């Protein structure tokens, strides 16, 4: 009985010799997958969906102030299945940020930033922060009233920075006010710079994670990889995750499309008509509320109306900016601030209390902002 040539195996071997793909998939399959692994995998799936839907949107979207809104509306109402793609992109953005936040919280609670994972944390958090920048730059692209005024409001506080304020605003807007130059900048950042940076960071993240894991296994601080990793089982599990994610996004698209279309998102940008009220997206509510809250609180202090009124005004303007602008740096610096070897959440009461308090404050600010 002659052996039937196995074409698939031959192709796989050919590829393996040249790319090492099988080794890589086996290594991935052999990695014990906990909650953080699955959340990370979901983030990657969500990012992939954003890339695919984003590319499809680019087929019809025109990044010019006089045509952007009309092209975005045409995608929604005229292009076959355009609504599905545009809404999936919009709902997927929120989902991706929610996953990024959840992954950050989980990694912080499990102290997945401690030696030798410092750079894994830094890389992962930069990825999460890029998600927020992508959300901001993507927001302006439909050139609706909401796009225009939300961008105006989001970039206006930059002017409060001493000395460099005006330069920062000009840099962000490409001029004194939000306009065509802002749209061009946001477009390039959203469709070229940020996706490329994210793809590179995902690759670096995977590499750093694998390296850190090897060191941990060698030191005995992490369970070793499964001896006989089964790539097909993991592939099935990942496919199931893809299906669940797609089903969730599809349900949001079909049953709650308005979530992606807040007030004023259905009217073209009009620089002469300021809509009221303008609510930021849920992931920026805490920041906008903080900018309202701190000046109110400082104004309520007895010393803020006397001789120190000037200083109080200055603090009112800069403190919210310092907190909002400083938060990403604090997040990135976490591995270098908390250097103790303990990882067990039960033996890190201060860290866990800080995480809970931070989340509580963010949730409270978000809730207040939502009811403003």
């Amino acid at each position, binding site marked *: 009985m002659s052996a039937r040539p196995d074409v698939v195996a031959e192709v796989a071997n050919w590829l393996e010799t040249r790319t090492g793909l099988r080794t890589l998939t086996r290594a991935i399959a052999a990695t014990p997958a906990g909650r953080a692994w699955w959340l990370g995998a979901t983030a990657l799936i969500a990012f992939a969906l954003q890339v695919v839907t984003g590319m499809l949107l680019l087929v019809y979207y025109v990044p010019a102030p006089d045509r952007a809104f009309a092209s975005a509306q045409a995608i929604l109402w005229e292009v076959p299945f355009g609504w599905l793609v545009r809404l999936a992109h919009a709902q997927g953005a929120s989902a991706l940020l929610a996953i990024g936040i959840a992954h950050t919280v989980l990694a912080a609670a499990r102290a997945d930033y401690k030696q030798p994972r410092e750079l894994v944390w830094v890389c992962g958090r930069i990825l999460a922060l890029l998600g927020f920048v992508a959300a901001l730059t993507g927001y302006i692209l439909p050139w609706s009233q909401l796009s225009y005024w939300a961008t105006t409001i989001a970039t206006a506080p930059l002017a409060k920075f001493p000395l460099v304020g005006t330069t920062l605003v000009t840099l962000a807007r490409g001029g004194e006010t939000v306009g065509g130059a802002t749209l061009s900048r946001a477009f390039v950042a959203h469709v070229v710079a940020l996706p490329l940076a994210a793809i590179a960071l995902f690759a670096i993240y995977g590499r750093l994670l694998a390296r850190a894991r090897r060191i941990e296994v060698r030191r005995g601080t992490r369970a070793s990889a499964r001896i006989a990793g089964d790539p097909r089982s993991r592939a099935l599990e990942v496919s*199931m995750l893809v299906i669940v994610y797609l089903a969730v996004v599809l349900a949001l698209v079909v049953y709650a499309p*308005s979530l992606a*279309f807040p007030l004023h998102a259905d009217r073209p940008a009009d620089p002469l008509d300021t809509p009221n009220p303008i609510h930021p997206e849920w992931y920026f509510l805490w920041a906008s509320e903080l900018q309202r809250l701190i000046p109110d609180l400082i104004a309520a202090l007895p010393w803020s109306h006397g001789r120190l009124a000037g200083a109080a005004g200055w603090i009112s303007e800069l403190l919210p900016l310092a907190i909002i602008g400083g938060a990403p740096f604090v997040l990135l610096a976490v591995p270098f601030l908390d250097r103790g070897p303990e990882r067990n959440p039960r033996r890190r009461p201060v860290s866990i209390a*800080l995480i809970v308090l931070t989340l509580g404050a963010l949730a409270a600010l978000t809730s207040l902002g939502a009811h403003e």
Partner: protein
Amino acid sequence: MLAAAMPICLALIGARAVSAKQPASDTCVACHEQEEDEEIANAVPEWRKSVHFAAEVTCDGCHGGNPRAEDEDDAHAEIAGWVGTPGWKELPTFCGACHESIAHAFADGNLGAGFQGGGIPPTCVDCHMSTGHDTPHANAKEILLDPLPERLRGVPQLAQVRRDVLALVQREAGVSKRVADVSARALPPTGLARDMRTLHNDWAPHFHRFEPTAFAKVDVEARAALDTVEQRAAQLQREAYARARLGEAGIATLTAAFAVLAGLRSRRNP
């Protein structure tokens, strides 16, 4: 430092949340509610039932004055923009401060011309208020007093324009119902409700000219525009139905695919 800042921040947020629930004080309502003069005292409960209350138009919105002042003179000071109660001829300007296009149409039209001749023609309150502040809600049937006061029944333009307006409003209500159905469906904002408001605001001022012939032309245009909105609404109803079916089919397919994969996986890892 961060640990100390968080509880303080939470406490401050809590304080703000509590203070945010305090209603803004309005001394107009507080004082006038307790007035012995029945006509003045009744203004508050009448206003509370009116369209203006629903639209959050407070006393100072029409009458001026300072709704935060503790002192009666301060509250009614000219410097605080106090306008007071308008005279008969001032009414179109008084209401027109907000209802600008309607006031202009009224002033330019048949009835407004009566003012120029020194007469006392019917004005806003004649058709829209039976007493001081009970401006009814702005729906088609309630916005006009029914029946009209005795002294208005002899004004021929009023009766005809009223008939025309009610007929158009009835047509508009039918389209509004369909638009409301579209708005309640799972679709991104369609802009139809806004189109309806714009359309209404386009034609509504015209009948305040009380010129039946001119209004007939507006009526034709308004009906044509309503037809267009209705066609779009019907198209969107079909679209919403198709999208919902597609969503259901998609989710069903994904669920089936998930079940197949779950079966394959359990075979590999029993």
